[in-house]
């Protein structure tokens, strides 16, 4: 994805468009997975908590 597309997707996610939100989560899944590790194992509950937190707060990002 080039930078122009990225901006459009991010704009959509910030505006609350579900498809764009999913795309952003998909793009940043490695980071989310990294933070979802607990004691060397992936904590599914933590990952879900983080994704909900991102979905609820992404509108606060100023483009």
């Amino acid at each position, binding site marked *: 994805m080039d930078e122009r597309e*990225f901006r459009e997707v991010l704009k959509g996610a910030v505006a609350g468009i579900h498809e764009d939100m999913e795309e952003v989560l998909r793009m940043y899944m490695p*980071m989310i997975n990294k933070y979802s590790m607990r004691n060397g194992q992936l904590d599914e509950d933590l990952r879900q908590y983080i994704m909900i*937190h991102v979905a609820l707060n992404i509108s606060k990002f100023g483009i």
Partner: protein
Amino acid sequence: MNHQQDSAHDELRARFTKWLDTLVYRAKLNYLYKDRKKVETVPIDEVGEDCLSCPGFEDECIRGLSGTDEIWFEEEELEKAFKVLSPARQQILLMLFVEEKKPCEIARELNCSVQHVYNQRSLALKKLRQALGKGGESLG
């Protein structure tokens, strides 16, 4: 011109990545904090009688339940400002805003007047506002 636009887009991606990294990190800390605050339960059958009859066991349980030894702050600056306050003022703010006790209850527990609680509260909030240096309207 094109090069300028590209660098602006690059800047956006970098800025968003950094912002998201902080957001996710804080979400994890919040989750771990909430998880830690969950009260562990043990079936009564698994608790030995010697443990129940042990003096101080009940106190230890109560201490574990109240668990106000460490407070999680959303804002780092607020945490720093809070630590500058005197222990007495910290205690009053914790009782007011974390334990959500009424000033009259706090006065009874601390053996002081209700007016003293109000005074300490307003002085502590004033100090916090000064330390944060931005009005602190949300502190109430």
